[in-house]
């Protein structure tokens, strides 16, 4: 697991472009946190990547117009634990019965 810290201008679609660079490589996003930071925004990502993918991702992120800074961080155990245990879960999705009902409505 690797941690990346990116600073970016919060313009339309920039965060999505950052995330898409990961997802298009079929890499799971274990943890994402985006927040305002001084005059810009920052996003912290925890992803399971190999050394080659680290380089590719960093270069792809830097090529995004409104990305200001990309810093790979060292893998941090707390992040990993947080990713698996500590993240608040979204509400359970609609179950199969409700899905069937809404589909026939």
């Amino acid at each position, binding site marked *: 697991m690797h941690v990346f810290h990116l600073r970016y201008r919060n313009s339309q679609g920039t965060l999505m472009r950052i995330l898409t660079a990961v997802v298009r490589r079929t890499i799971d996003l274990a943890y994402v946190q985006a927040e305002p930071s001084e005059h810009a925004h920052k996003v912290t990502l925890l992803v399971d990547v190999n050394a*080659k993918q680290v380089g590719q991702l960093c270069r792809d992120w830097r*090529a995004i117009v409104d990305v200001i800074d990309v810093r790979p961080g060292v893998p941090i155990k707390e992040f990993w634990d947080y990713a698996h245990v500590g993240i608040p879960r979204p509400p359970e999705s609609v179950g199969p019965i409700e899905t069937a009902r809404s589909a026939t409505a």
Partner: protein
Amino acid sequence: MRNGAQIVLECLRAEGVNLAFGYPGGAIMPLYDALEGSGISHVLMRHEQGAVFAAEGYARATGRVGVAIATSGPGATNLVTGIADAKMDSVPLVCITGQVRSPLIGTDAFQETDVFGVTLSLTKWSRLVRAIEDLPGIIAEGFYWARSGRPGPVVIDIPVDILRAGADFCGPVSFIPPRISEHVGSQSTFAATVSALLQQAKKPVVLVGAGARLSGAVADLQRLLDLLNIPTFATVHGLGAVKQDSPYYLGMVGMHGTRAANMALDETDLLLVFGARLDDRVTGDPSRFAPHAKIVHFEIDPAQLDRVRTCELPVIGNLAETIPAFYREAERTQLPDFSAWRAVACGAARAEPRNPGLAHPTKSFLQQLFSRMPKDGTFLADVGQHQMWAAQCYRASSPRGFITSGGLGAMGFALPAAIGVQLAKPGTTVLSISGDGGFQMNIQELATVHRLDLPIKMVIIDNKYLGMVRQWQELFYKRNYAETDLSDNPDFVEIAKAYKISAALITEEEFLDPASSGEVARRLDRFFASSQPELLVFECHPEANVYPMVPSGAALSEMIFEVSEEK
């Protein structure tokens, strides 16, 4: 006071736009309403995909930004293939799309599509306009990003209420980029390092890609290549960037590259790459690509480095700057004598086996076409077997003279793109070649050709198959020609005539018949001499294949050649 549509058009004019390609619809109607007197000529295509390919053709031929206009929903989604194509091939493109009224966004309104979201991963930059006051800044910034650095596509999505709204307008604005990439031009010592690597090398080679053309560095590159005098080859987008008669030039590399180029890549110990992405069609199996080589990669876009193969020395920057810097260093360095290596790599022993095969008549036909092309002419290839045969036969040295959808491989590209090229370069010869499958993907643009009376020379290589897919089915799927049979093609000559375009048919038998050779030659002469649009259909052998070929996933050294058995 101006309305949003008028502001858009004035800002486009300020960016140097005088020609746009598009197709009207509900959400973009205010823009069309304001077109007259705007100083921008509009070409009505017959499909939005035709419009975006035409804008690409215009941009590829000139280096200027191409502009495509479409309405919301299906109009916008029909642009998507062209946007992806522009991203892959680094084409400066701005797409203006209409959007439903702002209050309706997100309600699944009629003809509403989240085009901003749909194109997010295909664009270099995009905006959904939220206020009329933002229009001048957004258009200026969009054009900046479309043409800066590695060029690419931009989408500007404008709700119809903003196009209709009025606002005080103080004129177009300029965009000042917020930062300059810290990567560009920061490696002042690279030239000495590359020279040192050359000193140690025994079998150096050069690979030329599209970047040499896009950066306007062709003349500098040629000067450098003449100085280095080492085996050189090109990707499909690098064709035309190197003088074809250079004694060190080995032709195209990759899946359908020449034997000499692929063998040299397999043996080299130093590979200098100038502006190429090194995609899978060029590398074959990446783990066995240039297996003995150190790679020096000259590239403007850092994101292209190390995608399939790690390079030892990245040189990030505009080739128009890095090539001259390297040239100066190489010029004052005593380079080793590579003549022995050059003699081996470029020697006759590495020519393709002398087996012309079933594709020989078609390649001979293409050579006859190319031999009639003026030097300032532009050739466009669609996608498929004819594209690779043409790339193998192309011999002109013209930086923007060979245009094709190389990265995305979008069938249907050539005909509408040729419209954009012909409008960008009036008075020059534009030759567009398609397969029978691809031609039918945008066949409706014959109407545009006729309406504008564009003297495009159109050729269909008709083998009554989706030929490249059929070739793979033959070689790798035990000749199970599943759903590639197009033997029920329409009569293309009659179709062209229905569009009031002159058309003729040449069969392979007729072409090969010595008794007909004079007549065929005269027909080809007339075809090129005509000041009208012309369509020529060449019926070729249905099972002709493109060779050499590197099977997908194989190493470049594992080329296969045509066997001599009759089919």
